[in-house]
C-alpha cells in the first residue's frame, strides 16, 4: 500500500509507462494498475481467464462507464471470442471490433495513457501476451438533460441550452452545422483533470491563423485542473489585468452555431455548459440571438436601447452625485427643487447615499445568487421593497435616488453579456468615486479612462472596439442598427473570415 503522502503516478507530461511485455508481463501490468488504484473505491479492476486460458483484466470507473455494456460486451464477448475463433490468438483491433461489437476502440502501447483513459470513462482491456492495451469507448456519465438556459434564453428562438456533457454539446452544434468542413478538434488540458476540450471551427470559413493561435494557446496551458470554461477563459485572455472580458461565451447552441458561421472559434470544455467564443469585440458582447430572429425594425430599436442602457447603467449614479453635490445650478429649476425637497432629511452626502444603496444592491444580488431558489424570491421582496421602503421612511436615502439607482440597475440587466455587465459594475464605482471627488470634470475623466481601457484591449488580432475602432463604415452601423435579413450578406470583416459571403440572393 502506498504511503498517504506519496504520489503513485507521475503527472508530468513526459511520463510514460509502456505496456509490460515478456515473462510475467501480465502480472506486472496488473500490479501496476492495482498500485495506481490504491485505495480508490470507484476504480474497478476485474481480472478473469479467457476460454483459451489466457488471462485478461479490465479497468474502468464505476459511474463513468456503461456497466451493462462493460459486462455484456467485454466479459461475455471476450469469452465468446476466444471460443468462437478456435485460435488462441488475439491479434488486431479489427478482430476485437468485430467480436466485441464496440464502435469506438483504440489501441495503445502506453499503459499510463490507457489508465488515464479509463479514468475519463473508457474501459482499459489488457490481455496476456498482447503487446498493446485496448481502450473501449464505453463512457456513460450521468448528466443534466438538455433544457432552457438558466442565464435566460430568448422569446423567439430555440429553447435548448448546452449541458455539462461535452458530447451532448458537440452533438447540439453538429445538428445545426452539418457541414463536413465543421471541425471539432479534441484536446486535453489538465495534468490531473485531463479535461476534454472541443475546439470548433469551420474550415474554409474561419481564419486559419486564428485557429492556430487559439490551438497553440490551448496546448500551451499547463495547469493541473480545469473545472470550468471560466477558468480556461482567464488563461486565454491576453490582458489578464484588464477588468473587461476578453472572451465571449454562450449557453445557447444557436448562438454558438451562428457565431461559428461568423468566423469565430468556439471552445467547449467538458463539464461546463458555457461555451467560449473567440475572438471578442464589444459590439459582439452587446448582441443577442434574437437580433437575427426578429424583424429588423424592432431589432434595431432594441439594439440602440441596449447601448443606451449600457451607458445609463454606468453613468447614472455618478451623474446624480456630480449634479447634486457639485453642480445643482445646472439642473432645471423644477428638478432642482424636487431634488432639494427629496434630500431635505437625508443625513448623508449624495456620494455616501449612492454608495450605500449600490452596495446594498450588490449584497442583495450576491445573496440572491447564493440563496436556495425558493428563498431567493422572498429575499428579493424583503430586500427590494421592505428594506427600501424602510430606508426611505427613516430618511436614510431619498426616493429620487431609488429611482436613479433602480433605473441604473435595471439598465445593467439589459446588457446581454453577464461578464460585460459585471465589468461595467466596476467601472460604475470608478466613475462614482471620480464624480464624488471632482464632479462633472471627474466623471468626464472617468469616461476617458473607461474608453482607454477599452481601446487598449486586443485579443487574437481583433480590436476590442471594432468596428468603431478600427472604423468600418458598414459594420459600425450594424453595431447599432440591424439591417433586413437579405442585407446581411457578408460576415464581419473584423474577424477576417476566409469566406466572406454569407447570403446570396437567388436568381429570379
Amino acid at each position: 500500500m502506498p504511503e498517504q503522502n506519496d504520489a503513485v503516478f507521475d503527472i508530468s507530461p513526459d511520463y510514460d509507462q509502456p505496456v509490460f511485455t515478456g515473462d510475467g508481463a501480465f502480472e506486472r501490468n496488473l500490479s501496476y494498475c492495482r498500485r495506481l488504484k490504491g485505495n480508490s473505491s470507484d476504480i474497478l479492476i476485474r481480472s478473469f481467464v479467457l476460454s483459451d486460458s489466457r488471462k485478461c483484466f479490465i479497468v474502468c470507473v464505476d459511474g463513468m462507464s456503461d456497466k451493462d455494456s462493460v459486462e455484456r460486451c467485454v466479459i461475455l464477448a471476450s469469452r465468446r471470442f476466444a471460443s468462437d475463433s478456435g485460435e488462441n490468438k488475439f491479434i488486431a483491433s479489427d478482430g476485437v471490433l468485430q467480436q466485441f461489437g464496440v464502435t469506438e476502440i483504440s489501441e495503445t502501447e502506453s499503459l499510463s495513457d490507457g489508465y488515464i483513459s479509463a479514468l475519463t470513462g473508457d474501459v482499459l482491456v489488457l490481455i496476456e501476451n498482447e503487446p498493446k492495451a485496448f481502450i473501449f469507448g464505453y463512457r456513460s456519465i450521468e448528466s443534466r438533460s438538455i433544457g432552457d438556459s438558466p442565464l435566460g434564453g430568448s422569446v423567439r428562438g430555440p429553447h435548448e441550452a448546452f449541458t455539462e456533457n461535452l458530447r451532448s454539446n458537440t452533438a447540439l452544434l453538429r445538428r445545426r452545422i452539418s457541414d463536413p468542413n465543421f471541425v471539432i478538434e479534441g484536446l486535453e488540458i489538465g495534468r490531473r483533470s485531463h479535461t476534454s476540450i472541443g475546439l470548433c471551427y469551420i474550415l474554409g470559413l474561419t481564419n486559419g491563423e486564428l485557429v492556430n493561435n487559439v490551438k497553440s494557446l490551448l496546448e500551451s496551458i499547463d495547469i493541473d485542473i480545469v473545472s470550468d470554461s471560466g477558468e480556461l477563459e482567464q488563461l486565454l485572455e491576453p490582458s489578464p489585468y484588464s477588468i473587461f472580458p476578453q472572451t465571449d461565451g454562450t449557453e445557447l447552441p444557436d448562438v454558438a452555431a451562428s457565431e461559428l458561421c461568423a468566423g469565430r472559434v468556439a471552445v467547449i470544455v467538458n463539464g461546463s455548459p458555457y461555451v467560449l467564443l473567440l475572438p471578442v469585440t464589444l459590439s459582439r458582447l452587446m448582441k443577442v440571438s434574437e437580433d437575427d430572429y426578429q424583424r429588423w425594425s424592432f431589432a434595431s430599436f432594441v439594439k440602440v436601447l441596449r447601448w443606451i442602457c449600457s451607458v445609463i447603467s454606468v453613468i447614472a449614479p455618478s451623474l446624480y452625485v456630480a449634479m447634486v453635490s457639485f453642480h445643482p445650478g445646472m439642473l432645471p429649476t423644477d428638478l432642482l427643487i424636487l431634488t432639494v425637497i427629496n434630500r431635505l432629511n437625508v443625513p448623508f452626502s449624495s456620494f455616501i447615499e449612492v454608495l450605500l444603496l449600490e452596495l446594498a444592491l450588490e449584497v442583495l444580488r450576491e445573496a440572491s445568487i447564493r440563496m436556495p431558489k425558493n428563498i431567493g424570491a422572498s429575499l428579493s421582496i424583503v430586500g427590494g421593497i421592505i428594506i427600501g421602503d424602510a430606508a426611505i421612511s427613516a430618511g436614510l436615502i431619498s426616493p429620487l435616488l431609488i429611482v436613479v439607482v433602480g433605473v441604473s440597475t435595471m439598465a445593467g440587466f439589459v446588457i446581454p453579456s453577464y461578464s460585460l455587465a459585471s465589468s461595467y459594475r466596476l467601472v460604475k464605482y470608478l466613475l462614482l468615486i471620480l464624480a464624488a471627488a471632482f464632479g462633472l470634470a471627474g466623471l468626464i475623466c472617468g469616461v476617458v479612462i473607461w474608453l482607454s481601457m477599452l481601446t487598449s484591449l486586443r485579443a487574437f488580432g481583433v480590436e476590442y472596439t471594432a468596428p468603431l475602432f478600427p472604423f468600418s463604415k458598414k459594420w459600425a452601423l450594424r453595431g447599432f442598427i440591424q439591417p433586413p435579413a437579405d442585407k446581411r450578406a457578408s460576415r464581419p470583416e473584423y474577424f477576417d473570415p476566409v469566406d466572406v459571403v454569407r447570403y446570396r440572393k437567388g436568381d429570379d
Partner: protein
Amino acid sequence: MNNTREPLGFLPVFALALFATGMGVTGVVGGIRPEFIYAALPLLLAQSLALLLLLLAFRRGGYGDAFELLCASFSRPGARILLLLLGVYFAFRSAEILRSQSDCVSFYLLESTPPAVILAMLLITAFFAAFKGLRQLSGNVSLLLFFVLPLFVVIVVVALVRCDFGELRVVLQPSADYVGESVPHALAVVSGAESALFFLGLSKTKKDSGRAAVFSVAASAVLLTAMMLASVGTIGASGVCLERYPFIEAARQINIGGIALTERFDMPMLVVTLFVSIGRAAIFLFCGATAISAAFGTEKRSVVCLAMVPFVYALALAAGISSVGRVMDRVAYIGFFVIILLIFPVAAITSIFNGKKEKAS
C-alpha cells in the same frame, strides 16, 4: 514604441489631427475680439499646407516615423537634437493646454477645488489615454469624436439658428491692428497640426492620409468660425470681448425649447471642451514621449511618457506665474513656426531630392 508602426486608417488620422488642432474650441480665453478668426484662419490654412508638405515628405521618402524622416533630412545627431527639442516643445504644449483647461474647470465646475488638484486629475487622465501608444491614443480620440463632434455640431447649429444676425456685421469689419495682435492667442488655440510628424507617416494609404489631414484642419476652421459667429450673434461682440470664456458663455445663453434637460446649455459645451482638451493634451504628451524616446534611442516610450508626467505637471503649475507663462508662450510660438516653416519644408525638399536621386541612379 510598442505598436506605433501599425498603419492608421482615415478616421484615426482625422481624429488625431482634429483633436490636435483643438477643434477650434479649446484655449479660447477672454479678451479676444471677433477679428480673432482672421488671425486663426490663416494659421489653420498654413497648418493644412504644412501637413501636405509633411505628407509629401513621408510618401516620397517612404519613411515610417519621425525619426527616419528627420535622419534623412538632417544628420543623425542633428535629428536626435531636434527630436529632443521637439519633446520639450510638446511637453510645453501639453502643459499649456492642461493649465488652460484646469483654469476653465476651476472657473465653471470646481470653484473651491485647488487648480493644482484639477490639473493633476486632467494630467493623469491624459497620461492614461496616451501611455500605451498610438493605437490606443488614436482609438480614444476616434471614439471620443463620435460623441464630441455631433454634440458640438448641435451646439453650434442651435446657437447659429438662435443668434442675432445683426451682431455679425461686426465680424465683417475687422480692424487690421487687432488681427496682428490676435496671432499669439490664435496660435495657442488652433496650432497642433505639427504633432502629425508623429503619426501621419503611419496612415494606411496616401489618399486616406491626404484627405484626413486636409479635412481635419478644414473641420477645425469651420467649427471655430461657426462658434465665433454664433458667440458674436448670441452674446454680442462686446460680450465676446468681455467674457473670460466667450464660447461657453454663449452656450449658456442657448436653450432648446422643450428639451430643457439642463438649466444651462453650457454643460454640453464644457463636456466638449473637456474631452477635446484631454485628447489634445494626450496627443502632445504622446508626441513628446515619442520624440524623447527616439532622441535617446530607447524603445521604452511608455516609461518616458510616465517620466514626463511630473515635468509637465511642474510646467503647468509654473505657467500660472506670469513671467514663466510668457516664456512658455514664446516657446510655443517659436516651436510652432520652426516646425511648420523649417522642419516640414526641409523634410519635403530632402525627400523630393532623394527620390529624384534614387530615380536617376
